């Protein structure tokens, strides 16, 4: 029998926030077997780690910084908030492994996965789900490393740690403590079943072009024209004032790019990519790799869709549980930080929508700078996406 509890606290001082967590944790009616923790970058990670290690010794923990704090079924935590999800599942098996991403990111991720399986007591076994939290920048390599081991045979869900102002202050937290440039890999073998959903909240506008020159995460030209000019045209002049260069993160949140990753029926499915900066010669950097020859689609979103999408993703995850939505014990949500900034003051509606979809069951949500999940059966990294994990009882 699985039970899930969410605990949250809010304070600018980590000591005060941790004390509040401790008080709430006293009400837990079952000892947790797996913990997820997400918090505002202002907090002292080591204090959070020390508290968790002392209060829940030996329990695998996974998490890190989340843009502007966390959310839960109680609402948006807000600045200075910490969200802790405690999964109690005495018949399940959980393990977390970590690795620094200093060299070969793919091998590091592979190592962390094996470590997590070892710690879960399940070496050599296919997990039900892999949960990752990592530093932004090398997500494709991390996914590639994990896929070397499990392919697409189980879902890989997760997010890229985020700070509050894209200033590189993001961190990750694992059983060994905080990291600034690492990946935390969790393996989940739940006794109550787990399901997940991964979707974007954007629709294609009908305009598209071929990437004629690119390098990693930088698109140089689309249809032979400088990428920035083409994008500016597609977005109706949203970055006209920054064509000479600059950060376009907030300008482009409602106008991302899409890559077709397959079709359901005849309907194309897209992985969303968030343009980040305009560079020299009209090049444009993004938060995901874009290869030459790839067809890019102009996408469009709005607040209402980003709120509604959160509801749909949570509903889809709960509905996919082996015992249906009634068997839901709680959930975990990854919501893109870019979408969060775009939704702005209406973010309370996002947490309310998820809560409604989850039937008021406990959940914790984090806000990330990149999202990983399974699209049409393939594990992938995207931007401006929303994912949800549902735990069955």
């Amino acid at each position, binding site marked *: 029998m699985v039970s899930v509890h969410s605990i949250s606290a809010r304070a600018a001082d980590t000591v005060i926030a941790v004390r509040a967590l401790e008080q709430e944790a006293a009400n837990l009616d079952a000892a947790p077997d797996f913990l997820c923790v997400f918090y505002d970058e202002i907090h002292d990670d080591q204090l959070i780690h020390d508290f968790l290690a002392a209060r829940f010794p030996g329990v695998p923990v996974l998490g890190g910084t989340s843009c502007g704090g966390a959310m839960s079924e109680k609402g948006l935590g807000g600045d200075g908030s910490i969200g802790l999800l405690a999964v109690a599942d005495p018949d399940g098996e959980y393990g977390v492994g970590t690795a620094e991403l200093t060299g070969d990111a793919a091998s590091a991720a592979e190592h962390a996965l094996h470590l997590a399986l070892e710690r879960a007591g399940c070496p*050599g076994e296919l997990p039900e789900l892999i949960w990752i939290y990592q530093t932004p920048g090398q997500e494709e390599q991390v996914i590639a490393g994990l896929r070397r081991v499990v392919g697409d045979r189980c879902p890989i869900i997760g997010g890229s740690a985020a700070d509050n102002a894209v200033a590189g202050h993001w961190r990750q937290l694992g059983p060994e403590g905080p990291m600034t440039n690492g990946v935390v890999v969790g393996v989940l073998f739940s006794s109550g079943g787990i399901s997940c959903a991964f979707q974007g909240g954007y629709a294609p506008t009908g305009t598209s072009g071929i990437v004629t020159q690119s390098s990693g995460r930088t698109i140089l030209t689309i249809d032979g024209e400088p990428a920035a000019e083409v994008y500016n045209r597609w977005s109706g002049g949203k970055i006209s004032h920054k064509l000479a260069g600059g950060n376009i993160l907030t300008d482009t949140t409602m106008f991302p790019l899409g890559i077709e990753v397959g079709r359901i029926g005849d309907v194309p499915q897209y992985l969303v990519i968030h343009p980040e900066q305009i560079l020299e010669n009209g090049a444009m950097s993004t938060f995901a790799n874009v290869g030459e020859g790839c067809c890019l689609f102009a996408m469009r979103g709005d607040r209402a*869709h980003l709120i509604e999408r959160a509801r749909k993703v949570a509903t889809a995850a709960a509905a996919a549980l082996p015992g249906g939505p009634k068997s839901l014990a709680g959930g975990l949500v990854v919501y893109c930080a870019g979408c969060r900034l775009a939704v702005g003051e209406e973010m309370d509606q996002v947490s309310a929508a998820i809560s409604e979809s989850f039937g008021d069951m406990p959940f914790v949500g984090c806000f990330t700078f990149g999202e990983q999940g399974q699209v049409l059966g393939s594990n992938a990294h995207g931007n401006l996406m929303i994912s949800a994990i549902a735990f069955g009882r």
Partner: protein
Amino acid sequence: MSHAEELRETIVSMQRELDMLRLETTHSRTLLDALDALLVVSGEDDPFASVFSVLLPIFDAALAIALACPSDHDDTMECVASNDACLVGSLWQPDAQLQKALRGRIVATLGSHDLGSCMTSGSLVPGDDQPALYLPLTQHSRRGLLLLLRECGKPGFDRSHVILARKFSLLASHALAARDAHRREIESQRLKQLTDQLTDSQHALAHRANHDQLTGLPNRAHVQELVEERLARKRPGEKLALAFIDVDDFKRVNDIYGHDVGDALLRGIADRLGKQIRANDILGRISGDEFVVILDPFRERSEIVSLVRRISELLHQPFDLDGVQVKGSGSIGVALYPVHGRSYEALRRNADTAMYRAKTSAKGSVEFFNRALSRSMSERQCHEQQLRAAFAARMFRCALQAKVDIRSGRIIGFETLLRWVDAQDVVHAPDTFLPIASELGLLDGITLMQIEELLSWLPQLDQRFGKDIVYSLNISAIQASHPGFMKTLIGRIAQSGRARNFMLELTEESLIRANTFQTDSLPLLREAGIGIAIDDFGTGYSSLAMLTELTVDEIKIDRSFIACIQDRPHQQSILRAIGSLGRALGIDLVAEGIETENELAWLLDNSGIGAGQGFLFHRPAFIPALLDADLPGNRPPLSAITQAIIDRLAKPAA
């Protein structure tokens, strides 16, 4: 966005549900077969032989091993069955992974597992990379396991196998218990009930997975299965036809009458078509407003022609849907097996191509696929590629056609027209590439290229024709309804500082239908000082009364009104009315397509129209040629007769 997005959502969620149902159906069928295999074997016969024959292909496994513990206290297991007879009777000592499976977990391995070390007697030589799946299986009240192993190098088992294994493990353990106690009536009945429920559920699932919920007709995937089965049985000389039917203007029906009536229309169509086809034919609904009819068999093409014609006529007859009369039609494309394709996919694609041709030539018509159509599709693809290349190479150029004051012959403006000049210097007229460019999403870029070229020539044009000349630019209805593009275009024109020298020509449809144009773009145009003209007036949907509601600067009366105006009294009355209204509202009027002196003379004598455009005055020319042309006094070169007509009327006008 919302309509399209809702449609996408609906299709995707339906497809997901369908996929899930299909998976459930497959699982149910597999489980039933396996249970049957366990239960039908009588006496002391080994039930596992049949079970393995069911399970191995489903799990794509090469080796199955059933192990059983002698008692609850002894973990040593004996192989009680295997498709490898050598293993039967071997003894096993479970390691950690097998222990987990004994405790009830389904275990899928990531790679090889040294099973050989678990064997305490007998021999097993697992490969280096032999994926395995372990599931608990209670036999004769004893704990046990079923091990399934794939061949070396094959991909490992995934989560869907784990889910199926979990179901099988539970049911098979029950089935074995019941088999052991088959004489106990209650247990047998319970099991029979379970099996019956599973059978019913499987039938219900199979029906739901294979049929469209609205009409009850076979769905896309099922139609494909049925046709592929038929095609596989075809012998040389046997024929089949696939008719692809697309309901015309179905979206309009939904928009006007609502989705309930739309649904009723689809059911009505399914009902009518169902009564028309023969017993052996197949009717299916393959997406929202698309049906297929498989006419199988036929001998002569004439049979198909008459059958498809009857279907077409049936669709043209009005539908009475709960008191609402809806007039419908369907465009039909037909492909014939084997001449137009030997697979379902080829036949469907070719019939779809033929349907597309039918719809574009005349909605509600019927078209048979043929090689010319195939060529035409290839040509279209080629054309698209050329157009994309032309776009990348910026091979589009502006041609200008003069707009003149018909009472003086003086040039007052130019209409900017697009030309595609290819690598061989062949000049392509806009109607040969603009519709495709719009479909490909290139039109916005081309329009912006056009404005850039015009702006780059503006100093020379000013010097040649003066700074009061107004340049008109055509904007499509799609562009007008796209605020982002309109904002960019208006911004670019405004940035030049010459906004008052520009006018956007939009069709009536753009102005009336594109709400976003009225709300988002019109205020920006007004603020910038860019003029607005209604192009091709009189061909669209608007009435004269609507002119009073539109805030436009110019009306360009369509050429169809001007052609031979001197001989068409009815058109003359309309033109006079437009003229009066235009003058009353202070809107400038331009007569398009003036080609003859007679037309000009009538307009000068009988209408208040002040400006004109047409070959009588000037043919479109590229800007460099225009700048080089001899146009004394900013007047296009006119024939002596034209000049005489203008001169005759110049005095009264003065």
